[in-house]
């Protein structure tokens, strides 16, 4: 398979990079973590104006009905720039579930960004992200989609991920297990793309740091051990990227192997981004741990996303099952 981004996808990525690059997102993320959502919600609106929240919504509800590859482009940018908020839940998971259930919060409002939806989907996603800020909370209860309320807060290693228990409310409709699976796959793919973007960011930051930080009379990037560690991250990200885009194509084609491909993408993107974050911390040394230095925001984000939407172990097992079932 040959896959390259179209001019339009590159243009969309550029527009998102430009907007997010100008938006001082690390400061937005810090405020979000402290419970002040004002700037985060403003950013949500601006990203909605660019179409991020409408990508996965059908055209009949004011959406863009875009391809999963377009969604991946958007979420890689969100990951690279650290945008806080339940983007996966509102822009990817909820449109799939609400379309399938045929009821619940208005998809038109989700598409326009005027309503923010979050969701818990146990056992993989037991808590609802940012449920205190979202307008609607959903709970995937087996094959029943329910409205829910924000319950007890839970902590995440990523302070900008404000998790809440979801207290079940009235049922909104039933969803076919295959469609629940597809919604979960799409959300997992979005998470993989975010990891890829976050990994790219911490690698770029580390390379820049290794060039400018001098020790023993030369830039630390001149030392082979540092060079090799960063090159290994480059390789890991470059091997994860085709899996993420391959899974997007498979999901767009509704292929029989789409779930396997999504799992392969998540496992690879998690491992690559996690390696990127560990190497970034090591390259930076003590400054990397510093609260005031933004790198830590990405490192904790990557740690949280690595196990969100299924751990690496879960996804590797899914790939193994698919491979052994095919050969049996």
């Amino acid at each position, binding site marked *: 398979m040959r896959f390259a981004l179209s001019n339009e996808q590159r243009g969309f990525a550029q*527009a*998102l990079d430009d907007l997010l690059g100008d938006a001082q997102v690390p400061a937005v993320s810090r405020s979000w973590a402290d419970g002040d959502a004002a700037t985060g919600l403003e950013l949500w609106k601006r990203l909605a104006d660019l*179409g991020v929240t409408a990508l996965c919504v059908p055209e009949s509800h004011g959406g863009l009905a875009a391809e999963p590859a377009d969604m991946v482009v958007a979420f890689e940018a969100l990951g690279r720039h650290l945008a806080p908020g339940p983007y996966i839940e509102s822009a990817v998971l909820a449109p799939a579930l609400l379309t399938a259930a045929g009821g619940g919060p208005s998809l038109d409002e989700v598409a326009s960004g005027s309503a923010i939806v979050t969701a818990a989907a146990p056992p993989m996603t037991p808590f609802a992200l940012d449920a205190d800020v979202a307008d609607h909370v959903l709970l995937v209860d087996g094959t029943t989609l329910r409205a829910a309320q924000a319950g007890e807060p839970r902590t995440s290693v990523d302070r900008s991920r404000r998790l809440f228990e979801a207290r079940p409310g009235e049922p909104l409709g039933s969803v076919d297990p295959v469609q629940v699976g597809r919604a979960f796959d799409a959300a997992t793919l979005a998470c993989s793309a975010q990891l890829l973007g976050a990994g790219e960011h911490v690698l770029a930051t580390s390379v820049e740091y290794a060039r400018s930080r001098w020790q023993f009379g030369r830039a630390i990037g001149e030392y082979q051990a540092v060079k090799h560690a960063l090159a290994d991250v480059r390789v890991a990200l470059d091997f994860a990227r085709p899996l993420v885009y391959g899974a997007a194509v498979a999901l767009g084609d509704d292929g029989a192997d789409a779930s396997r491909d999504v799992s392969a993408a998540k496992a690879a993107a998690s491992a690559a981004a996690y390696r990127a974050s560990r190497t970034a911390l090591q390259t930076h040394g003590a400054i990397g741990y510093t609260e005031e230095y933004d790198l830590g925001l990405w490192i904790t984000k990557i740690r949280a996303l690595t196990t969100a939407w299924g751990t690496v172990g879960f996804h590797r097992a899914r790939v193994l099952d698919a491979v052994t079932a095919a050969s049996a």
Partner: protein
Amino acid sequence: MNIVVCVKQVPDTESPRKLKSDDNTLDRAAADGVINELDEYAIEEALLLKEAHGGEVTVLTMGPDKATDSIRKALAMGADKAVHLVDDALAGSDALGTSYAIQQVLGRTGFDLVILGAESTDARTGMLAAMLAERLGVPQLSLANKVEIDGSSITVQRITDYGYDKVEASLPAVVSVVEKINEPRYPSFKGIMAAKKKPVEKLGVADAGIDADKVGLAGAATEVVDFADAPPREKGQIVTDEGDGGAKIAEFLASKKFV
């Protein structure tokens, strides 16, 4: 209202810019091309005027094939169509030649209002709007940080060192804008997809009725005879504070006539 925005693709200001050693012209292939930053404000202003008064926004660019990327971005922001003047004969044109070529194209497209950025980040002559207005025989309203249109009259606030001048003229006219005028929009997914289907007319020198002798490097009235890299920054002077640091700083500032 027929609004034409002149857009130039320039080397990305983030990347190092070079002149070619053979003919002393800008090496456009060596750097990534982006829309000249001030032109984005011109596009935004055209779109705002269209939203307020109706009409159509045409993007006009003169440049090599790769300027197509900049045209696509302008169309994705919301412009309706584009004209791309592209011909090897135009390479190396100076401001006089460029203004002549654009005048010829504007003769074909027609216009009520031509909007330009006040200058480009590569050549930085800031003369094109004035030359174009002169050639077209219409008023020039330069350095606008606010544009208002009422029927066939146009009023702009022209920024000055001491505040602004209020300048009025009647349409058709040429306006150049500064970055204080608005905040250019980012292209949306919808806009980017819609841009794919918008018409881009490619014109060569002959199509536009341009006399090839008046443009290009050979037709240029000005010539870059030599260039040199900026000298490396000199090492700063380090003053050790021995209780008189403040006085030394004041002395230095006074020697440079800052205080």
